[in-house]
């Protein structure tokens, strides 16, 4: 019998959006409760989609053998330099023989030698333990005691054989309604008008982290105005006070749109010369959102779309 959505989502029902992620994680939690093991998860998605939040929430629901909550260790992989440092500073004092959940955040930045070690460690077929020998010492990984989760924004940079050993959980962009709910949830005691909330959610670029940050600004605004409502006029005031641009675009993105509106189309090199930004910075940091929102298109040259032109008119 297929599991009902309401039953499936009960561990994460207080979190907004990411329904597919919730379903998958609920499944693995239920499997963990039955078997005490969990696959090595790899949370993949853009910045600010809630990978760390979901990992933490998942870890909170993993129970030790005595029923107590398992501690959660969050590691930033870009600060790990080599195997020796990992085993000395992390594995021996915190992980070895303990029941714990470990999140390797920014997993694409794992050092090469630790990636190679993980190929051996996470190559488990039927057993729940793995002995890894490093510099004449043997370290035992017990996967009934230790749960390993990886998270990355750049899954293409993860070594493919390691990726093969992990179970991928993909995060998706938040809808406008989801973002509105996130804003409301983080603005305790503030009542929003539908119009104000809709416009607010259009300025957070589909990103949950931006929505949380915007909520903090709204809370500050309402406190300074001594009010507990946020309506269209308040939105206009906030836009004016913080210089928020339509659709949440940045000043550089606005500049790119204006250049393209004036010139019709231009090459990346020209755009680089006019803005003073490197072609790489333009491609990686400033064009992605404009492309995603269909404000520009690339067809040999950069061109502004009809949507982009409307946005420029709106700004002016």
């Amino acid at each position, binding site marked *: 019998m297929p599991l009902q959505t309401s039953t499936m989502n009960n561990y994460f029902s207080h979190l907004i959006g990411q329904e597919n992620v919730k379903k998958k994680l609920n499944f693995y939690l239920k499997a963990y409760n039955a078997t005490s093991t969990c696959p090595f998860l790899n949370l993949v998605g853009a910045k600010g989609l809630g990978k760390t939040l979901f990992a*933490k929430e998942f*870890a*909170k629901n993993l129970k030790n053998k005595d029923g107590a*909550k*398992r*501690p*959660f*260790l*969050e*590691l*930033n992989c870009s*600060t*790990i*330099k*080599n195997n*020796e*440092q*990992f085993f*000395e*500073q*992390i594995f021996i004092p*915190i992980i070895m023989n303990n029941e714990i959940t470990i999140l390797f955040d920014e997993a694409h930045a794992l050092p090469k030698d630790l990636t190679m070690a993980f190929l051996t460690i996470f190559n488990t077929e039927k057993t729940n333990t793995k002995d890894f020998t490093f510099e004449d010492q043997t370290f035992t990984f017990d996967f009934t005691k230790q749960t390993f989760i990886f998270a990355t924004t750049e899954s293409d940079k993860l070594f493919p054989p390691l990726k093969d050993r992990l179970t991928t959980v993909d995060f998706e962009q938040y809808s406008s309604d989801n973002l509105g709910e996130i804003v409301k949830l983080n603005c305790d005691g503030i009542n929003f008008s539908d119009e104000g909330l809709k416009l607010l959610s259009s300025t957070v670029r589909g990103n949950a982290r931006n929505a949380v940050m915007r909520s903090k600004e709204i809370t500050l605004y309402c406190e300074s105005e001594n009010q507990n409502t946020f309506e269209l006029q308040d939105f206009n005031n906030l836009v004016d006070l913080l210089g928020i641009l339509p659709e949440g675009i940045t000043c550089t993105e606005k500049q790119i749109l204006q250049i393209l509106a004036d010139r019709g189309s231009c090459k990346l090199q020209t755009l680089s010369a006019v803005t003073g930004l490197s072609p790489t910075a333009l491609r990686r940091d400033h064009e992605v959102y404009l492309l995603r929102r269909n404000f520009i298109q690339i067809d040999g040259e950069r061109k502004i779309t009809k949507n982009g032109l409307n946005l420029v008119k709106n700004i002016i």
Partner: protein
Amino acid sequence: MKKISLNKDGTPRRRRHSKSAAAPTVSLSIEEIAKLASDQVLKIPVSEDWVKGRLYANYLVNKTTSHDFSEAQSVEDKIEYALTDFDDE
């Protein structure tokens, strides 16, 4: 190829070398040198090239040592982490 100049008698003219010819050398073991040297001998002349060669060899040995040292240093770099125990939740 350099042009060869001839003397009046047709024989090839000797080239003048800017450097003087190197003194012939012999290879001796440390023990043999010790036997030959009397108690009064405080210094033994060696070629500048030999000294440079030894200095470079020592540099390479030290370079290996400093490589180990840098690894030891990197172990001391702290890995950033946060530990949550969920006790109050």
